[in-house]
């Protein structure tokens, strides 16, 4: 369970580093975000949601049966468009409306 940063997409805003509840992210000398200890990640996706550039993706470690999918999210007002990019390249999008409560 962890996250990875797409350095090419990262704008160096530092918001992910501020938000992580474990303070696991920092900016490197070139100003891009990095996670030095990915195995310390809780998988809460706070950084994923905080990154306006969608440069951070959540994945499941192979030790817990992860299959290489990458989860990112794009915010659009109250809507969160979550996208799972499967290892094979296909992307599935699930939209959650923040104004709706869970049914369950």
């Amino acid at each position, binding site marked *: 369970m962890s996250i990875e940063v797409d350095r090419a997409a990262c704008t160096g805003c530092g918001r992910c580093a501020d938000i992580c509840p474990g303070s696991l992210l920092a900016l490197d000398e070139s100003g891009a975000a990095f996670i030095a200890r990915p195995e310390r990640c809780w998988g809460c996706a706070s950084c994923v949601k905080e990154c306006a550039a969608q440069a951070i993706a959540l994945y*499941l470690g192979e030790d*817990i049966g992860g299959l290489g999918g990458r989860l990112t999210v794009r915010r659009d007002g109250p809507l969160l468009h979550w996208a799972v990019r499967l290892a094979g390249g296909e992307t599935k999008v699930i939209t959650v409306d923040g104004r709706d409560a869970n049914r369950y």
Partner: protein
Amino acid sequence: MQEQGHNKMTPVSALRTCRVETDLLIIGGGTAGCFAALTFCKHSKGSVLIAEKADIRRSGCLAAGVNALNAYIAPGKAPQSYVDYARADAEGIVRGDLLLTMSEGLNEAAAELERLGLVILKDAGGGYAMRGERNVKINGENIKPLLAEAVRRHPQIRVLNHVNVTDLTLRDGAVRGAAAIDVRQPVFYEIAARAVLCATGGASGLYRPNNPGFSRHKMWYPPFNTGAGYAMGIRAGAEMTSLEMRFVALRCKGTIAPTGTLAQGVGARQVNARGEVYEGRYGLSTSQRLLGTVTENAEGRGPCCLRTAGITKGQSDDLLRAYLNMAPSQTLRWVESGRTPDVADVPIEGTEPYIVGGHTAAGYWVSTARETTLPGLYAAGDAAGGCPQKYVTGACVEGAIAARAAARALAETAGQQGGAETAPPAQSALAEAEGFLRRGQSGEQTDALEEEMQSVMDEYAGGIGQGYQCHAEGLAEADGKIRALEARAGGLGAADMQGLTWIYELRDRLTLCRSLIAHLAARRETRWPGFVRRADYPAKDDAFLLYVNSRMQGGEVSILHRPLVGEAETYEH
């Protein structure tokens, strides 16, 4: 008011001291801490300082979001019904006074959260739609940012984000502040306060987790809630209660995501590998539901699942969205494997044990007003004991009760010397921090000691590996090994503030392990077989219808037994 630092990590050798003063210091800006800050300001003009190791917008249990408000009194029910439920679930070991005062405030806390912007599902009549008798359905994805925003807007409240409190500071036996380190900047904080609230949550990471490899932090309880609040209290001599009532959660295999949404939301039953529904056979209390799964696995009928296969595609899609609001990893698993809950049952397992006063009764021993045995120190939420099944709303209520008590106490002592003049020195804490830094990098070693601690606890103090069983001889062995690890941890070194924080996290977990082991040894019966089984005392013994409490004095844990307190009483120390 919020303060932000920059994000670069720099090697550190010496610390700059920063002195801060406040009327009320809140350690931990989580659910209870934020709610307490807001409540205090309704009852006092005094200043509030929240010291939070992360950023209050996404810290603690609520970081990923939650799925429901698990504690609510349904229309037509009385708060006493909640007390009765929680008492039965905990086999009697609860504080009636704490449960009742919490239950009386649950619905107001829910209403306040709704006023702050939380979306709550309504029924046809405009009331809250209930899930079962005690849960309210919400969109809990943004519950923490909402609380944080209310705090940020309040002029009386100052937030120090990324400040990790390490020790309480005392004068004449009373708590008068705290020592802290910045987790990113080379700064040491000496905080002086007229009252202090400990709201640091519970403790994860004491035991070897379900997934000890790369995904070791993919646990249910936040890996960043390390029991610091308990540990600083224990070291200062505070009385603790019921630590032996550990919490073991029943969770989705691998992702350790919550299962309540499946069990209660779509009525998924527990089934074993043969397809038999087993959940009724073991009883339906929290501990019994877990025991069922553990026993089915131990007796060779695992793996166990929640039966979801056969639900509609629409229900499945709703579940995928619901999990994105609280445990996105589970939705990722469903989508990437193609085994969505309508086509495949969801495998479940028991987690490693946690100490969490919002689920069981473990934590600080507090008065009805939530003051600890250390004058001037209050506790609320997962840090406070005696009052299980608090969840989000209960943590809020406890924060509010403690905040009102602190406001009253401060009004009574108004005009007396406060703040800086009475700030006790924190030099020993500073010297300790600089000592760790002088020794330089040894990150590997901190990790290694942590792993060793988790192995010891797993093997000798009833972890997953032992099917949650322990016995007197094993516990004595565990105590010796944890003491040895404590000695070794004293010699660790760190090159930067994050490394230093990790040393403190290990130190705090070791302190808590010592007390936990003493509690496990003292309760010579098996009361909650799902949470912990004493192999040498396998039956429930009503001679133990009492609280097992403890206090650390001179480095040794001493146990006290206290008689049960009912809801008719107001308990003062």
